[in-house]
């Protein structure tokens, strides 16, 4: 049950105290204040008898505006604080969280966590990350570029974005609006091994969603740009124009008959396929035997030309992190080389359960780079597709990580001899991820860097399309 949000650019939790005249996000608390808070939580845990503890505190502040048909629709000020603690009594653990940073709240929160730990069973695999894995140096990864954006400037940018879309074509007659959001936050993590690390980050986005109408048909689409530094954002006009083009090209959509054909996934959807691969090699799925890729380490999962690397220290990238959410140092590594699976995605707990060591992926992966299989832009890939389906949107959640079964709603374009014939919708595409992965024929160089997985278009040998 899900409705795609008008702007899919994520605006994390956040702020409130400014008025229109002041800058967008609030000043962040001083590092020392957060460090003191973490130290207080760990001290309280010790005082209440915990043998080990870990704590995370965060502060976020954001401004977001939405403009629709030239008028301001919403202006939101966000400010959010968080505090989370996990305590260990030997091998038993308990967790608790609150938004309240006062001493009394810290005491109560630690007490809640301790009360839980008195009831949970001893788990031989539980515990903090091993001390030798904790990050010793914390490189500056260039993730903090606050944007002194006033609400009025934000509104103006959102207007510009939407106006560019509305001006593209007379068939763009309605809109879900243009949006601008800016977020600044600070997160700090510490544990009773003596680790304490944290850093500020920013994230800014522009988005636009408009509706193309013709002969009683309505089609909606959107585009967005997101970056750590506003300098990295696409121009508002470009965002608006892309949103308009993407909506317009869907007009005249038809269905297809049921058939088996090659399928080309647009970069933003190819990213999702790689995401399903990651879900299947995550420690939690592996130790529960809830994955279609069990015991595949060192064996081919993709064709020989596929290489996937993790690059956690890319400067200014959206998923960069000097350490993971349990303080373990992150490092470059090869996840897939020559199509062969080289490593799993593990945190300390799942690693211990598998008899392995953590890969620094508590909380997720940090910049996965899917190497292009050649200098293949979108046009070149349409030629390689020859006759088949170019998928530009997917609907629904029909993916089973246990079996690899994949069946989702789709829309896109029917392509013959490398030429786009007409837009299609109300069809499904189905297959099994195991075979889909080995059936990859090409990976494009048209890489989309708007998320934690940098991937270009992806061409698959064959899937079942169900339609009329």
């Amino acid at each position, binding site marked *: 049950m899900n409705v795609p949000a008008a702007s899919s650019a994520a605006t994390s939790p956040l702020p409130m105290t400014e008025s229109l005249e002041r800058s967008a996000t609030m000043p962040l608390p001083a590092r020392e204040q957060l460090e003191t808070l973490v130290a207080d939580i760990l001290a309280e845990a010790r005082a209440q008898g915990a043998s080990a503890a870990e704590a995370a505190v965060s502060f976020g502040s954001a401004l977001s505006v939405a403009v629709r048909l030239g008028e301001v629709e919403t202006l939101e000020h966000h400010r959010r604080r968080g505090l989370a603690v996990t305590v260990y009594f030997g091998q038993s653990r308990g967790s608790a969280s609150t938004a309240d940073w006062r001493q009394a709240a810290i005491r109560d929160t630690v007490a809640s966590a301790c009360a839980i730990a008195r009831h949970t069973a001893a788990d031989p695999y539980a515990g903090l990350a091993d001390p030798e894995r904790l990050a010793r140096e914390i490189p500056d990864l260039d993730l903090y570029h606050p944007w002194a954006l006033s609400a009025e400037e934000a509104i103006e940018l959102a207007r510009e974005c939407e106006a560019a879309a509305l001006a593209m074509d007379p068939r763009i007659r309605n809109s879900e609006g243009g949006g601008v959001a800016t977020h600044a936050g600070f997160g700090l993590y510490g544990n009773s091994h003596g680790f304490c690390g944290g850093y500020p980050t920013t994230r800014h986005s522009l988005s636009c969603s408009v509706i193309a109408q013709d002969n009683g048909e309505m089609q909606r689409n959107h585009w967005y740009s997101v970056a750590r530094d506003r300098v990295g954002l696409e121009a508002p006009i470009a965002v608006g124009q892309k949103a308009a083009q993407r909506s317009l090209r869907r007009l005249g959509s038809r269905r297809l008959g049921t058939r088996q054909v090659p399928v080309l996934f647009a970069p933003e959807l190819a990213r999702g396929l790689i995401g399903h691969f990651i879900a299947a090699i995550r420690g939690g799925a592996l130790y529960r035997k809830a994955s279609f890729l069990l015991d595949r380490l060192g064996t081919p999962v993709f064709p020989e030309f596929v290489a996937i690397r993790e690059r956690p220290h890319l400067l200014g990238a959206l998923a960069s992190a000097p350490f993971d959410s349990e303080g373990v140092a992150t490092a470059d590594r090869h996840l897939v080389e020559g199509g062969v699976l080289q490593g799993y995605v593990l945190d300390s707990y799942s690693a211990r359960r598998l008899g392995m060591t953590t890969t620094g992926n508590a909380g997720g992966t940090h910049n996965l780079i899917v190497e292009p299989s050649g200098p293949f832009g979108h046009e070149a890939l349409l030629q390689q597709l020859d006759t088949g389906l170019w998928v530009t949107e997917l609907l629904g959640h*029909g993916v089973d990580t246990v079996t690899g079964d994949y069946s989702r709603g789709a829309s896109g374009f029917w392509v013959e001899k490398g030429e786009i014939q007409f837009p299609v919708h109300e*069809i499904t595409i189905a297959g099994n991820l195991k075979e889909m992965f080995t059936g990859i024929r090409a990976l494009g160089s048209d890489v989309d860097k708007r998320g934690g997985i940098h991937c270009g278009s992806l061409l698959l040998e064959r899937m*079942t399309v169900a339609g009329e």
Partner: protein
Amino acid sequence: MMTIDTLDLARQQLLTPAGLGEDDLNRTLACLLGHAIDSGDLYFQARRAESWSLEDQQVKSASHAIQQGVGVRAVSGEKTGFAYSDEIQMPALLEAATAARAIARHGGDGPLQSWRPIQRPALYPPLDPLLTLSAEAKLRLLEAVDAEARRQDARVNQVMVSLAAAQDTILVASSDGTLAGDVRPLVRLSVTVIVEQNGRREQGSAGGGGRVGYDWFLAEERAVGYAREAVRLALVNLDAVPAPAGAMTVVLGPGWPGILLHEAIGHGLEGDFNRKGTSAFAGRVGERVASPLCTVVDDGTLAERRGSLNIDDEGTPTQCTTLIEGGVLKGYLQDKLNARLMNTAPTGNGRRESYAHLPLPRMTNTYMLPGAHDPGEIIASVERGLYAVNFGGGQVDITSGKFVFSASEAYLIENGRITRPVRGATLIGNGPDVLTKVSMVGNDLQLDAGVGTCGKDGQSVPVGVGQPTLKIETLTVGGTQA
């Protein structure tokens, strides 16, 4: 039905500790309105939540969370200004009001109405579900579910159980005079099992819940029933053959398959999308959008249901709203903002995930009323088709009307009989015409077990769905067997 002064309970929990009284609410609203704002509201919330989870036959992790704050909204025409604070204190309230009212530069001064407390008979008790079982009893409940699942079949090799509860106490004070409070318990238990046979693995999940205490799971063998159901589902899938691909007759079972109505109809009838003309249903009230057999309602007033509320998050009492009657589109789901802009009345569907989110028109419990047919008769009428009885999630593009929902338990129907189970497959259709293809409606209306969560604009809220057995003459099934 109980009559409990939930407003008074909310006042005691949210305002009294901060020394706030109704005069302070008045002062804040006056500050909000002093700036050429049409209307404004304050939403106070305190939330306590916990979750316990079991795997490897042991409860090894659990967490507890507390969240509280106040959201301040200022509305001027179609514009909304919003700010919130995680401190419930007068200075923070005034600061948030100052930020929220900056939305308006011009416009009429909204009048501040005198308080009009909203009271209604309670649909659920104002209990704290976290306290309805001792910690030891919660562990025993989880362990009993695990044991029941393992007892079902030797092929069960993983059982994961989670038990969660939350208590939300809210108070809404609006410049239109609304003053209302609610105390909302919510519990949920879910079981996932993995079975293995000859190297093939399948999973099955089941669960339930509602606005009740944990003891509800102990009654009528509910909790152990979820364990049996999860194992049954997983075992069915061990024998499943690839699903067919293409358009065919589909019979949907009763209960949770009502996710069809949620995706195909419900979202498209939310007031915001219709006010903006972005829904495939915009401007179609009075038109036929379903076969005459179909009557669909959204009902927030069902006792103890997951999707029910005494009042919505704007203080409007919930109601039973007829969306489609005898196949004809009757109306939309409204919050206050969209109702005002569309010149109609709110329907008690203004909901928000928390004080840190703006209210939106959202569903409560959405279901189709029963028809005349025996479910067996419906199956017998199908020569070749799909019988789908359990589903995972769904999604809709409200503008094009295309929707999907993914079957997790389905069977082939051959010559009027249910034959082989088939693997999971996504079904896709077009919202505005799928119900015109409903040719038979069963007499077996069921509501779901109480596990649905709906996402919109990044906000999640608990909802319910339901329906009787339905026959849809043609729908596209996204299997692999072309």
